[in-house]
């Protein structure tokens, strides 16, 4: 087993009986009161995440800065606590997925599937994001100050996605709830097969997707967009067009399982 794991590596088993390669926490963060800084350059993905969880859950730290994330995948996932996390650099795929509560600032770029399935919280990205940003988003705000790739907010079920740059094809594909504000141009297939929710677009729309139609602008829309721009200090919003589901393909109700129980 040593030959597989390498020298000096302890093998432990997790609660499921699966091998957990060296599950020890590095505990190298510089802690100052309720703030901490992790130098991640020489840590593996697993070590960075276990260090982060140790700080937030066991040490009661409220504000963590992570230096040199170096575009690694799956950083900052599964954090279910109110806290503030700052990544000083780019993340790879699946960054900050499955979170509930944190306010995350990313001073760099992210790869595919950032903030996937976020329940609540805030993720602000200073640069560009890859495809599938905010996939299956349930709540919270995802703000991308650069451009995003294709299929932004695919299967979105709540929350808000704000993009200051352009977006690729199939933006809002199959979205069911929530809102997206795209300030730049969007690619073909905007809102394809969407069930519900609202898409605001500032730039040109290459082509609308199936059953996506232009919506009627109301004061509530103005209030909503201005509030989001104010919260994140994004200046004054551009002139936006609103798109919603045409409900031609609409054969479903919009209730969550728990709500459906109440109705029935």
């Amino acid at each position, binding site marked *: 087993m040593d030959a597989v794991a390498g020298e000096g590596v302890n093998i432990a088993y997790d609660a499921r009986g699966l091998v957990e390669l060296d599950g020890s926490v590095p505990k190298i963060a510089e802690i100052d009161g309720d703030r901490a800084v992790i130098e991640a350059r020489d840590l593996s993905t697993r070590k960075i995440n276990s260090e982060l969880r140790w700080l937030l859950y066991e040490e009661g730290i409220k504000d963590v800065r992570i230096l040199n994330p*170096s*575009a*690694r*995948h799956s950083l900052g996932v599964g954090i279910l606590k109110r806290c503030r996390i700052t990544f000083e*650099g*780019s993340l*790879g*795929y699946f960054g900050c997925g499955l979170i509930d509560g944190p306010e995350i600032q990313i001073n*760099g*770029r992210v*790869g*595919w599937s950032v903030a996937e399935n976020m329940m609540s919280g805030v993720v602000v990205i200073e*640069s*560009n994001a*890859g*495809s599938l940003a905010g996939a299956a988003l349930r709540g919270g705000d995802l703000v991308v100050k*650069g*451009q995003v*790739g*294709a299929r932004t907010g695919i299967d979105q079920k709540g929350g808000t996605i704000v993009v200051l740059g*352009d977006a*690729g*094809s*199939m933006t809002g594909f199959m979205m069911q709830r929530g809102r997206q504000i795209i300030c730049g141009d969007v*690619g*073909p297939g905007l809102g394809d097969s969407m069930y519900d929710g609202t898409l605001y677009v500032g730039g040109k729309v290459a082509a609308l997707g199936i059953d996506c139609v232009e919506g009627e602008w109301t004061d509530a829309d103005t209030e909503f967009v201005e509030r989001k721009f104010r919260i994140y200090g994004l200046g004054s919003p551009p002139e936006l067009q609103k798109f919603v589901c045409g409900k031609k393909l609409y054969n479903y109700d919009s209730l969550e399982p728990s709500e459906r129980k109440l109705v029935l």
Partner: protein
Amino acid sequence: MCGIAGIIYRDGGGQHEVGRDMTRMLQAMKHRGPDSTGYALYRPEADGYVMHVKLAEANGHQGFDREEMLSRSRREIESHVRAVGATILGLDTSRDHAMTVTFNHDGDLKELADYVEDVRGAEVLSLGRSLEIIKDLGDAETVAADYGLDAFIGTHAIGHARMATESDVDIANAHPYWAYPFPDVAVVHNGQLTNYFQWKRRLERAGHRFQSECDSEIIAVYLAERMAQGDSLEDSMRRSLEELDGVFTYICVTDHALGVAKDELGAKPLVLYESDDIVALASEEIAIRKVVDREIETYDPYEGAVMVWTR
């Protein structure tokens, strides 16, 4: 899945450790495809042609007479190259199931490649004045160590870490593909082509040969066919978006240019970093960061994108 990567240095000097850089990029994406690793590396143009020939599959016939068969193949390939009138400048027979021939030749390269491939089990992996394709089973560090790629000095390169989905795990189905019989053109691809058989039949009727069952080989031969008819690399690539169906991101290289194309759904990933002295692109940013070790501004090109850079 598969991971693809490309790097081109734009200062035109050609004195870069491109083999080492590409190994780092591909090793960082090992999780995208551990089955085989391939490189198309370009060195500054030399006097003669360099031809890489696969003698047999790495995991093929393992009988008692394997050594004898391989050395017979080596002798036959050498005599076939001489027979078409080429002057052999150098032979590298140090590797188990592959060999490299350097030669001068004024005649038809297709004729030479065809005659070499008449040798049982032989496949010309690449042929060109500056192109060298190296592909074998294993991850990037394994292949680079076997073929001494860390010492490769050159101008630009593409690479591929393969997760076999549509065809076998062997060298014939590994990327990159040389655009037989056109010298110095190669392709790596991440995706699936759905009108593969249509194009294979069409191109076979036009006289092209296919060495593998892999859909990606179509792209190399398709582009080479277009370029042979006078289209530029960029025009050929734009046309391929119309004529090839499926999901794909592919990178095509020639002796002086590197181009990338994405299908109209943008379904396969690509991250791009452009600066004045280097262009690096890969399926994941983590690969680019292995050669540009600082925070950089990168982005994902959109669906239908075709981009070409020259060195």
